[in-house]
Each structure stands twice: as C-alpha cells, then as structure tokens.
C-alpha cells in the first residue's frame, strides 16, 4: 500500500519522463534499423545462398526479389523490410532456413536464453554482492586485495576462452579423474537426449554455461558493490545508528546495505539486458539452444531476415530495460529527479 502511494505521488513527475524516454527509445530503434539494414545490404546479395540451392527455382527467386523489393532502390527496400518487420508478415520477416516467420522462432529460443541468464544473474549476485560488501568492510585487507586481483583477471579474460577451459577441465578432465562414463558437468546442449524432464540432468548442463556467463558480471558487480558500500560506510546516519546501540549486524545489514544496493540495482538491470542480447558467445560454445546461438547460426547461413529479427528483438529488450532501470532507480532513491 505504501509503495502504491509513493508510486501515485511519483506519477506526476514520472509520466512526462516516460513519454520523453519513449521518444528517445524510438530514436534508438530507428538507428538500429538503419544500421543493421545498411550492414546487411553491404554484404552484397541477400539471396546469394538461395541462388546456390538447386531446389529453389529461378521463378522462386524472382518471386522473392519482387516481394522483398530487391529490384527497387535501397531506400525503398528499407521500407519494404521495415513494413514486413513491424507487421511480422511478408518475405522480409520469414526465415530462409526455417521457412517460417522469424519472431515466433526468436521468442521460442529467447525463453531458453532467459533460463540461462536468470540462473547466471542469480549466481553472480550471490557471489558478487557478499564479495563486494566484505571487501568494503575490510578495505585494504588481504581479502580486499585478493578480490581486486580476481576482478582484474575477470576483466582480462575473454569469456569464450574461459568457457573452453571450463569444458576442458571441469567437463573432460574431471570426468577422467573421477573415472566416470559421462561428464559430471555436461559441455553441450540443455539436456541429454530423452532426459528432458530430469531436473538434475538439466542442472548438470547449466553449471558450466552459468559459470562462463557470470564471470564478467561477478568481476564488475563486486567492484561496483564495493565502491557503493564505501560511499555510505562513513555516513553520519550510520554513526547515529551505532550510537543508538544497534548491533553492527543491523547497522551494516539493514541501514548501510539499503543505500548501498541502490546504484547496484541499476547496473544489474542494464547488464542483465546486455546478457539477454549478448549471450552469443556462451551459447555458441555450449551449444545452448538460445537466441544468441540462433543469431550465430543465422549469420553463418546468411539467413538475413532472422539476423535482422534477432538484432531488432535484442534492441527492444535493451531499450525496455534501460527505461525500467531509470524508473526503478528514481523510485528507490527519492533524491533522484527525473529530467
């Protein structure tokens, strides 16, 4: 109830802000549309792969060319594509390889990505927040230095290589050492054939991709949490809380943490959007049937309607999360003015 009241009170300020941000978001999406269309057209003939396919007749190609507007000037083509993408119908929004509209397929794969990202974010939060808080409380201690060193490694590690090494060590080598017939942590796919409803099997498939995907976020978030905590730790209101005789557990765990978590929430929201769109590498290495792998395969097969569909879908997610992060930030911290 209290939240609802604050929400309504905020609405007067919030609505114009949201409207402005929507206009801005449309600008971002327009930019993405122009860039991705130009890039795809710069690769040459979008139908090149189809022309090489002996089962597709010249009549089919001619029909596609007409329906996609490829005989028209490029600017006109752009609007053919835009119209098809927005309506979700027409040849520009049909995958060459799946022979079906792209957005239902993307939505289907997106759910698998969502599973992976949800577990990764949960794991990264569970590690990064305590790490950052403890580093801040023990600033310049051995623990703090160790955490700093680890985060430097996290920043400097290309995640695809980290994934490969995990496959090699925790996938293959561990299986050898333990003398198992199957790896303890699987290195590919979401579940073993026929084990679709086996929770344990699914979890064993999740471990390595989740570790890979959370490496960079743990490095980033723990640093962020550390500095956010350092910002509040010397505030007067904490001294007051201590002077009142509150136990240290309450002073840190309740009073300090409440304010130290605010900036982190924003970063987490933004990074989560980036993860949803950018799990390409992890999904490719671990053959995770998500949106990133779909994008990678579409690009390899020159399935341009699918490529563009995924880019647009990803951009929409990014824009929405950006907006949500801003709103939530102002909601949590009344000192922030929407402007």
């Amino acid at each position, binding site marked *: 109830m209290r939240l609802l009241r604050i929400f309504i009170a905020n609405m007067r300020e919030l609505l114009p802000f949201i409207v402005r941000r929507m206009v*801005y978001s449309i*600008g*971002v999406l327009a*930019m*993405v549309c122009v*860039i*991705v269309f130009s*890039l*795809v057209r*710069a*690769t040459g003939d979008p139908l090149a792969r189809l022309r090489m396919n002996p089962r597709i007749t010249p009549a089919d190609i001619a029909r596609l060319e007409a329906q996609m507007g490829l005989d028209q000037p490029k600017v006109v083509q752009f609007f053919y594509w835009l119209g098809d993408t927005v309506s979700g119908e027409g040849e520009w929004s049909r995958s060459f390889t799946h022979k079906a509209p792209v957005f239902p397929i993307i939505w289907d794969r997106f759910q698998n990505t969502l599973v992976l990202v949800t577990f990764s974010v949960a794991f990264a939060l569970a590690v990064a927040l305590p790490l950052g808080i403890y580093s801040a409380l023990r600033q310049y201690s051995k623990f703090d230095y160790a955490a700093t060193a680890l985060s*430097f*490694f996290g*920043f*400097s*590690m*290309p*995640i*695809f*290589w980290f994934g*490969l*090494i995990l*496959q*090699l060590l925790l996938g*293959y080598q561990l299986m050898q050492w333990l003398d198992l017939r199957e790896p303890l942590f699987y290195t590919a796919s979401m579940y073993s054939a026929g084990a679709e409803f086996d929770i344990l099997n699914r979890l064993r498939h999740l471990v390595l991709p989740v570790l890979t995907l959370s490496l960079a976020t743990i490095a*980033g978030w723990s*640093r*962020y949490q550390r*500095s956010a905590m350092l910002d509040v730790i010397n505030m007067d209101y904490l001294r007051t809380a201590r002077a009142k005789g509150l136990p240290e557990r309450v002073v840190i765990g309740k009073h300090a943490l409440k304010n130290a978590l605010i900036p982190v929430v924003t970063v987490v929201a933004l990074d989560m959007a980036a993860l949803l*769109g*950018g799990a*390409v*590498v992890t999904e*490719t*290495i671990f053959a995770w049937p998500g949106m990133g792998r779909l*994008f*990678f395969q579409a*690009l*390899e097969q020159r399935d341009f309607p699918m*490529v563009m569909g*995924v*880019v647009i879908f*990803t*951009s929409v997610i*990014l*824009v929405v999360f*950006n907006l949500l992060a801003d709103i939530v930030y102002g909601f949590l911290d009344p000192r922030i003015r929407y402007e």
Partner: protein
Amino acid sequence: MSAVSGHGGSGPGVGRRRSPDDVAAQSAEHGAAYTAGSTPGQMFWRRFRRHRLAMISAVLLLLLYAMALFAPLIAPYDYAKIEYTGAQPPSADHWLGTDELGRDQLSRIIMGGRVSLMVGLVVAALAAGIGTLVGMIAGYYGSWVDNALMRLVDMTLSLPLLPLLMVAGLATGGSLWGIVVILGALTWMGVARLVRGSFLSLREKEFVEAARAMGASDWRIITRHLLPNAVAPIVVNTTLAVGTAIIVESVLSFLGFGIQPPTPSWGNMLTDAKSTMVLYPWLTWAPGLSIVITVLAVNFFGDGLRDALDPTQVRIEE
C-alpha cells in the same frame, strides 16, 4: 587550479623533459605550487614507479610490442609452413608444439600477436580520436550542440554491440582495416563523455577567459588551453581501451567474423583449437594465455597510469 591539472601541459610527458623556465611559467599561469626541482614528468615517474605491477606490465608490453614489430625476425619458423607431422605436443624443436597442419605454434602466436596488438592499439587510438573530437565540441560549445551530441552518445551506448559487430564483420569480409574502423566507430563514447565533462568545467576557468580576452580563436582555446588540461583521463581511458579492443577482436575472430585464416590472430587460432581441444590441449592454452597475459598487462599498466597521472580522478569502469 590544482597541481594535478597543472601538469597537463606536458601530457603524460615521460619522455619530454621541460626547461625550468617553462615549468615556472606554467606554475604562474595556473597558480599551482610545484616543489623545487621536480618537473611534472618527474612527479609522474615517481608516482608510477611505486606501482610495481604497473612497472612490470610496462616492461612486458614493451617486449610484446617489440615482438610484434619484429615478428618475422623472431619467429623461429615460417608461420604458414605446413609439415606432415600433424599436431605434436610442445618439444625442444617446437616450444609450443604444432597444430593439425604441423605449423609451428610459437611462430603463429608471434605472428598472431602482431595482428591482435596492432588492432588493439589502432582501435583505441581511433576511438580516442573520435571521442575527443566529439567531447571537445560538446563540452566547449555546450547548449544544444552538447545536447544533440550527448543524445547521440546515449543512443550509441544502447546499441547491441556484439551482434552489430558480427554483422559488420561479415559485411567487411574480414578485412583487417574494416574491423579496425568498425570497432573504433562503436567504442568512442567513453572518451567523449570524459572529455566533455572536463571541458564543461574547464571552460569556465579564468585562464580561458583571459585567452578569449586576448582574442584567441575558439580553435586555439580548445587545442592550446583546454585539451592539454584534459589529457590525463584520455590517456588512461585509451590505455584501458587497448585491452578491451584486443578482447573484442579475439571474440569476433573466434566466432569467424573477424580476422580470417590463413592470417593468424589469437582469436581465430582458438576457433581451430576448439574442436580438437581434448586431443591437443596445448593449442587451446597458448593463444588464450597470450590474450589473458596481454590484457592483464594493459589493465595493470592503465591502473598505474591512472594513479600516477591523476590520483584524484574517480575510477571509471565500463
């Protein structure tokens, strides 16, 4: 004006010592107090030396870039020479072993490093150039110019970077310069924000007003009075950007949309290694460790630079 921005005139200025008169003149100009006999260069050097990891990293990076520069002379074998021995583990003849085609892995690492290190440096420099230009204009002119440019920065920051880079890599057909330009064009925003920030505050200072009163043109004020004072954060940010660029290039090349074989890069060497990882693990370890060590060195070096150039600067992490 703090002593920190006072040393901006010589930039990072390790190699460039200035005459005492020069320094005195600058101290007077900026009202900063220098201890007798220590030039900005010396102050920088004293602070930088204290950061032991940064010193080690600086030496390591020098060695790596020397290796890249003289790669054909240093490589023990021809990196493209195919031997019918197949993949061999590391030995006295081939320190890092050979790949499936019998090519010497060490020579390929050295030649591949040439590509990765060059891409990292050029991309960072390009991004710094674009970012500085945009930031200068936005920060100096302010008002609607600033507003428009900063909205552009915001928008570019909310683009899905990796997918666009992959499509762009395909569009340029894996040409080295194409990738360099694309990477530079999509990563300049951090520097733009930094430069804009320092320009916004610097342009209100008295020495700028004095210069304007003496009839200096906008361009002269920007390049001679403002830019030297904003150079420290640019240098730090650009250094760190070298590491990011190396990683992004390796990701693109690994996925097959960056540098194309037969030209080796640390990224595309791992594409081949991936499928035979269990059989020939040395092919996976060497390129990956090369990337990690190089980027780690860049990051430590950048960290040391930050501490030495500008101890008061707030840390900016992307």
